[in-house]
């Protein structure tokens, strides 16, 4: 990234932002990950996907996990959600050690994973019903969550009748209806087109503002991570290690215009350099073997 602008140091925080982080650190720890290691062993070789990953997420925080592809982001979130078991390490939710999947940790997948045979409302009711709540309370609660994500008109529609963005909103409502203590989101907007994606990011911030929830957000999109998060956990690839946990100096509430603010660009550039170290770009221009017309257009 070359720019003529002189960007401020990403560590510089306005007093407002600094005070905000101070308050955040004083809140209880919602999720504590210590020494998490995951090795995949096959007969030929051993692949270390995650190596001694430790971090903690405070209550009501929105933490993004970012890293180059293959750094084990998805493995990390799957372990956190209990869908895979770590080779070593421990996971605590509000101080209690947990293993295996459970309703205290919700998950939103990239592939929506809505139950196609259930209507929107029935999908949102799934968690409470599994927990043994009576149908009518689950139903009225589900209505509220559906209203929160703005899909009241579609509560009786089946997933195949919805667009990708709507499906993902249902998936968020479904996860929230379970009132989890931590919500994991595994590249939830990765399958959406750019416009829907930025719309969904605003939706998510809006929901997060109104719901008492801690979010761990996995993404490979830098702008998305900076735009949404309080802090960003940058992972190294091969093996997956914590490179740095970056505090985002952009004040809240976030608006799309902030993308062009110096603090936003500073932190973005810093993380970009962490993931793609400068000086490693391809220097030589590709040699073209065929003639092109109007070479001066470039």
């Amino acid at each position, binding site marked *: 990234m070359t720019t003529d602008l002189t960007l401020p140091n990403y560590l510089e925080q306005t007093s407002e932002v600094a005070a905000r982080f101070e308050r955040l650190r004083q809140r209880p720890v919602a999720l504590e990950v210590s020494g998490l290691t995951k090795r995949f062993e096959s007969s030929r070789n051993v692949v270390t996907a995650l190596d001694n990953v430790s971090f903690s997420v405070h209550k009501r925080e929105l933490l993004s996990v970012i890293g180059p592809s293959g750094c084990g982001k998805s493995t990390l979130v799957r372990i956190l959600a209990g869908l895979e078991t770590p080779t070593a390490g421990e996971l605590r939710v509000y101080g209690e050690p947990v293993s295996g999947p459970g309703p205290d940790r*919700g998950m939103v997948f990239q592939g929506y994973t809505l*139950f196609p*045979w259930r209507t929107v409302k029935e999908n949102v009711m799934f968690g409470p019903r599994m927990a043994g709540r009576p149908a009518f309370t689950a139903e009225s609660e589900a209505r509220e969550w559906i209203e929160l994500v703005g899909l009241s008109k579609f509560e009786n529609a*089946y997933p195949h009748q919805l667009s990708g963005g709507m499906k993902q909103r249902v998936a968020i409502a479904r996860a929230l209806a*379970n009132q989890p203590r931590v919500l994991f989101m595994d590249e939830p907007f990765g399958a959406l087109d750019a416009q829907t994606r930025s719309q969904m990011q605003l939706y998510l911030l809006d929901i997060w503002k109104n719901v008492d929830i801690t979010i761990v957000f996995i993404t490979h999109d830098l702008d998305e991570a900076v735009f949404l998060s309080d802090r960003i956990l940058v992972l190294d690839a091969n093996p997956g290690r914590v490179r740095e946990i970056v505090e985002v100096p952009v004040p809240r509430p976030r608006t799309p215009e902030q993308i062009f603010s110096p603090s936003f660009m500073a932190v973005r550039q810093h993380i970009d350099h962490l993931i793609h170290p400068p000086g490693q770009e391809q220097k030589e221009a590709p040699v073209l073997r065929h003639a092109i017309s109007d070479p001066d257009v470039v």
Partner: protein
Amino acid sequence: MNRPDILKDWFLIRRDLPQSRRLGLTCVSFLLPIAVWCLVSYIPWIWHPDVKIELSAEREGVTTVFTAGDHISRGFFPEFVEAVRKENATVIAGRKSGTTEAGAKRKNQKLLRQLAPLAVSHDWLSYTDAQNDAVLYTLWRDIASGAKTTSKPALTAENLEIIRQNWALLSAASPEFSYSKLPDGSLLKLIPQGKPANPIYLPAPNEVISTGLRDFTAKVPAGELTMGERYKKSLGVIFMGFFWACLVGIPIGILCGVFDFFSKLFEPFVDFFRYMPAPTFSTLLVAVLLAGDAPKIALVFIGTVFQMILVVSKTTRLLDPSLLEAAQTLGAKPRQMITHVVIPGIMPNLYNDLRILLGWAWTWLVIAELIGVKSGLTEFIETQGRFRNFDRVFPIIILIGVTGFTMDQVLSWLHGIFFPWAGTSGPLSRGIVRALKWPVQALAASTARKNLVQP
């Protein structure tokens, strides 16, 4: 080159034709084979390798007897006709030389009866009178006098002449039938008549339709089954066999698809067992379950259940595993995952599997009905086939085909009603689903309101 629009765009690679053309082609796909059948049956010069005898004759010293309705090859027919003519010539020669042989009464009586089948088919004679000599005698008289032939000429001029000559002899002896007064000397034989026909195994459509209608509406002697009852019996066997197969096969299949434990415990043996053809167990089944329907149902069961276990377990494994993961993160326990995710999730595919397996069950039905005491539609096919009454066999074959096809079409249409969420339903089935769901939803809404009011 300017082709009219109707000829354009019929052959597009991997692209659907418009609805009207698709419908048209669907109709043609049924009409085409029927058209071929009609062409072969009704246009004599296309095939017709046989001659169907309408009027037969018995020959002297030849043991093979052809009766009306028999098929003989087209090459042999003229030979047959010539032989009869030669015999008539001998009779005439005998009369001229005066050496009339005696003792031909019995032969002459049979000769008079040869006319009966042709007369019946032309409504000159009722079916019940075919052996009634007195009525036949008057028929000969009427034909000789020309009363019958003027409206519907069915006899060749040669045969009419023979009838007149014979009647001259007969009427000289007696105006009415009397066995003792039949001429002692040989009468002239009627020259065989026939028309080109297809082999007996390919009856014409109209014959199949008329015999089919007759068989399905016929009253049967006490103790025998009408065709409707046979049909019901066959359906009973197939549905019982299929029902038991579902009862056993679906739960085992789902368990195998969900738990590796059951998969490894059952599937290897099932995989082996399905290569043993079900009919090989027929004698064993009859020995164990005795005669009656039980071994037949068991055969359909054996033929279906092993395939079913494998197909259902495969379908279960095809369920998107991320749905199970989602359910887990939503707090579903293992049993809830089976009842609330696996079972509803595989339903539409399971339904389609069962549709295909029901088609297989029909195949086993035919074999099942032949084991032990033959029964149902297959017994009828088997019996009539032995008598070479193929015009009675074809309606049954078509009936089985139509039943299977209709059932499959109906079930496939119902798919849209049962599984509106699969996204395959048309506007009609969607409407029906909405209509069916409405009272349930209204009821649920009213109870929900009550529950809200109470606290």
